[in-house]
């Protein structure tokens, strides 16, 4: 234990120190090369450590995964199988279900987190207890997925009809004579999938709200005052002034939420593990890898996920370019 503390301290103090030393050293070396080259060499030395980490932990494994997706399952002696793994994916019922569910996740999670985030951000801007309200909404984001899973297990708890319902939701709908519903075990109409999406909406609305709220505060109050003086109603002001000005922010938040929904994993893994028609791509991949030991198929699933994300990336790049041209 003591040695751990020493190591941790060494890392906490040592790493920044090493980096600073590295920059001083490279700067000194740069001054030795002809000045014509200095400008070209220096940026790469500053970027070096970051690029090394990114290359090792993200780029290299991604390329490896793409190659692996064209090979057979065996971890030790994989053989080339062409497109077999992809053929399996697009003809397999569970895989297609996962794809469909992820589309559902994408639409619902993005729409509700951004929509609710926007509404809450605009509303709390008008009340005095704004910080408290924001804290309450934002809090779930600080909770781990495991803990959130526990919290919602209690919310969705189901007892057979006739017994007292201990789950909050079933007790609530019971007071008006409905239910009980086995929220997490109902494949019909995708009830369970929606139940899972609701948890993530609960967790991520705060994120959308915080960022949108900051943009709302950034709007020039004189603009709103001018509109008010012209007799515009609050709803009109929101639609014609506030909303258009929030455009770029909403784009950033939406992108983040689309990526989050495509990568959805933990909540599905802990609560249903893909049963009752709640499968998603990331969970399917983990299953193929660890339950079935089929690295070829697991890699193909991962590549499908990457492909789904490419349009989002393209949009992000366009957005970024547009922002840069304004700078």
């Amino acid at each position, binding site marked *: 234990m003591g040695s751990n503390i020493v190591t941790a301290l060494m890392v906490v103090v040592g790493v920044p120190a090493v980096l600073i030393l590295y920059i001083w050293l490279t700067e000194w070396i740069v001054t030795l090369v002809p000045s014509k080259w200095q400008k070209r060499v220096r940026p790469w030395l500053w970027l070096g450590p970051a690029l090394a980490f990114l290359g090792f932990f993200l780029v290299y494994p991604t390329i490896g995964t793409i190659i692996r997706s064209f090979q057979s399952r065996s971890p030790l002696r994989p053989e080339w199988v062409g497109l077999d793994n992809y053929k399996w994916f697009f003809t397999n019922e569970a895989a297609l279900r996962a794809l469909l569910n992820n589309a559902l996740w994408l639409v619902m999670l993005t729409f509700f987190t951004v929509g609710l985030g926007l509404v809450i951000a605009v509303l709390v801007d008008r009340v005095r207890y704004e910080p408290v309200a924001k804290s309450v909404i934002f809090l779930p984001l600080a909770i781990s997925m495991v803990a959130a899973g526990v919290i919602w297990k209690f919310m969705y708890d189901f007892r057979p009809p006739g017994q007292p319902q201990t789950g909050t939701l079933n007790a609530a709908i019971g007071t008006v004579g409905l239910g009980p519903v086995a929220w997490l075990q109902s494949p019909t109409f995708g009830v369970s999938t929606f139940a899972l999406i609701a948890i993530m909406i609960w967790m991520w609305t705060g994120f959308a709200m915080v960022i949108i709220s900051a943009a709302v505060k950034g709007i020039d109050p004189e603009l709103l005052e001018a509109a008010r003086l012209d007799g515009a109603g609050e709803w009109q002001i929101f639609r014609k002034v506030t909303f258009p000005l929030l455009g770029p922010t909403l784009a950033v938040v939406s992108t983040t939420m689309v990526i989050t929904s495509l990568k959805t994993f933990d909540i599905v893994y802990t609560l249903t593990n893909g049963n009752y028609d709640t499968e998603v791509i*990331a969970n399917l991949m983990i299953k193929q890898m660890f339950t079935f030991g089929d690295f070829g198929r697991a890699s193909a699933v991962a590549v499908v996920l990457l492909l789904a994300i490419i349009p989002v990336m393209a949009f992000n790049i366009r957005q970024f370019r547009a922002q840069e041209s304004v700078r």
Partner: protein
Amino acid sequence: MTTTVPSQPLPRPLDVPATPRVNRRPRRVGRIVLHLVVVGLMVLWAIPTVGLLVSSFRPSSELSSSGWWTAFAPPYHFTMENYAQVVNQQGIGQAFLNSLFIAIPSTIIPIAVAAFAAYAFSWMEFRGRDVLFVVVVGLLVVPLQTTLIPILRIFADWGLTGQFLAVWLAHTGYGLPFAVYLLRNFMGALPKSLFESAAIDGANHVTAFFRVAMPLCVPAFAALAIFQFLFVWNDLLVALIYIGLANPDNLPLTATMANLVNSLGGGWYLLGAAAFVSMLVPLIIFFTLQRYFVRGIVGGAVKG
């Protein structure tokens, strides 16, 4: 979805100036609706957590027979028994320390590495700068799961699996795209004149970085540190793969909690208490530092 923004029922035409007198009554109704909606949402958002909090203080016998809301009616039965059992659970103290050992370096290293890269992206001219930055941001979307197997194989060869160093390095790699993105946005938004006058005064990039960029980026560093710390503290997957397979003794709190969730069976009444123990540090961080969090994220990501 409710898109009801409290408003005057009839929006007036734009060219007719509104007289405050006419507006007073509808506005008051609007205020009431506004408060109802906001407070309603707050209650809705708080119920799940409050429910679990109340449950965590109830005796196990009552947990399975009645809902948490019944605890507010007499007879009052509250107990610390669940917490006592969770805290006395074998290895929980060790797991708590492990979480700290994992989270603190995993927060500091990526920020240090990202700061230099962000500076280069913001204030140095070189060929392919924008393309490279876009690629880095693009890496934000790489699903973590795709990287696990290839990296695990290399770590195993190097004898790193099961060690804290493995997760420190891994979290640095995974955290970098967001860190570079956020810091680049923040640093890039600093006024250009600051750096020009520093250059005129004879400052090189190293001096400009430490004397101009770093001090001004403190809110961004704070926000990033909070975000990364929470992310690492709440992480289960990375720790399970790189540490759990080889050396379960070094596993963090989330893994212990996940084990409780999976294996308790009869002891599920401990879950609430266990969940709150694991939330302790994130909640403290959240409530003490949320100011920085908002300001730092916002200074960069949203500027107009």
